[in-house]
């Protein structure tokens, strides 16, 4: 019997080790697995490389993980957002590393990582500083830059509904990076709003097939990051 459900967020993240690469879903607060991130803060793994589109906001979720000194390097496309103070301060004082990646290249590097494709050519960033030092090649008269796949040791993502096989359905634009991160990580950890019976999700509507998922923890009423930030909450 396959049952990927686990009892708690703490249990779900317990084996994340120092130095791991952790893919964290979300675009701003949409899709951010805030309870899993807070469990990772409680757990305390350090020197993490974190992949996310942004760097969190306020002093909760991803921003709190960074503020807690657990992240050595961020790989992201847009490290500045409204209410993001933690990363900018650490970056400006040289205490955190940044790999800046165009958003589509970030998504495609993850997809490639999950699909067994080691690298691919793209026109994005050609002629810009982000292409410097990268191999370039011309196809049909147009220049392309070689980008390497990106894989994670772990992925932390959020969905709306899941079953015990790990089939996932998301909520609106909270889907964003989660499906490609689930593919690209060796161990994919999901927080779901509801764990439903096998068969309750129409196979035609499964967005992430369970083969890409390892653990599912139910968080029935996830916190809303912007509300926590507005309340001035600080985690832990």
């Amino acid at each position, binding site marked *: 019997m396959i049952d990927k459900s686990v009892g708690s967020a703490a249990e779900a993240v317990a084996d994340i080790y120092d130095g791991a690469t952790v893919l964290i879903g979300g*675009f701003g607060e949409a899709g951010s697995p805030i309870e899993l991130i807070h469990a990772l803060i409680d757990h305390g793994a350090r020197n993490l490389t974190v992949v996310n589109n942004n760097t969190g906001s306020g002093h909760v979720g991803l921003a709190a993980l960074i503020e807690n000194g657990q992240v050595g390097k961020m790989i992201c*496309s847009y490290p500045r957002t409204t209410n993001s103070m933690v990363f900018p301060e650490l970056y400006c004082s040289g205490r955190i590393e940044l790999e800046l990646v*165009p958003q*589509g290249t970030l*998504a*495609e590097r993850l997809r490639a990582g999950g699909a067994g494709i080691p690298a691919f050519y793209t026109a*994005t960033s*050609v002629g810009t500083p982000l292409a410097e030092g990268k191999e370039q090649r011309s196809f049909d008269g147009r220049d392309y830059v070689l980008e390497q796949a990106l894989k994670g040791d772990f992925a932390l993502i959020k969905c709306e509904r899941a079953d015990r096989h790990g089939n996932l359905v998301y909520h609106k634009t*909270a889907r964003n990076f989660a499906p490609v991160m689930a593919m690209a990580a060796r161990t994919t950890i999901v927080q779901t709003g509801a764990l439903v019976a096998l068969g309750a999700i129409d196979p035609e509507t499964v967005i992430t097939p369970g083969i890409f998922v390892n653990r599912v923890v139910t968080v029935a009423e996830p916190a809303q990051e912007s509300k926590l930030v507005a309340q001035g909450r600080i985690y832990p």
Partner: protein
Amino acid sequence: MSKESSRIGWNREAMAKRAALDIPDGAYVNLGIGIPEMVAQYVPEGREVIYHTENGLLGMGPPPAAGEEDPELINAGKKMVTALPGASYFHHADSFAMIRGQHIDLCVLGAMQVSERGDLANWSTGASDAIPAVGGAMDLVAGVRTVVVITQHCTNAGEPKLVDACSYPLTGKAVVSRIYTDLAVIDLTPAGFQVVELAPGVSFDYLRQRTGGKLLPRP
């Protein structure tokens, strides 16, 4: 610039309105943050335009009514939006396949500088103390079929944003095809910046004094 001269030309709404006139019926369009976002509300009636937001939605609608907000239904600027009938959600790799695979017809972006060859700089001043952030800008200019820019003609300090060569780091090379500013509509041509239309009260000489690079009068 004097207060008098700063009143000449189009305001932000008029710039957005002017750009909206050029959006064809049936187009799939991505709008950047800022003035570009305003374009949607001015598209002439009778044209059906489908808006793409790179965080995973085609068929984006206007901001939600009070009480209808969903913090997980947002646009690329992280503002809450709605999904119109016929909308679809998808993940980031599919969303950027739409962009990079040349499926999006048009994108409207802001700019720090545009060169007379159509090079765009809109993501970084290159200042050593700045935190670089690129988002989807480089993907959009590399993949969208037609890239147009809406921007003030000059910086707040009065420096031209239309230049012979960008001094800021590029977003893409030779990617811009048209620019809408507060002073004019300008096409990028092999010969330089080609004036298409001047805002009311703006003369060619006035425009030329505020434009770097080669500016060509209306034919």
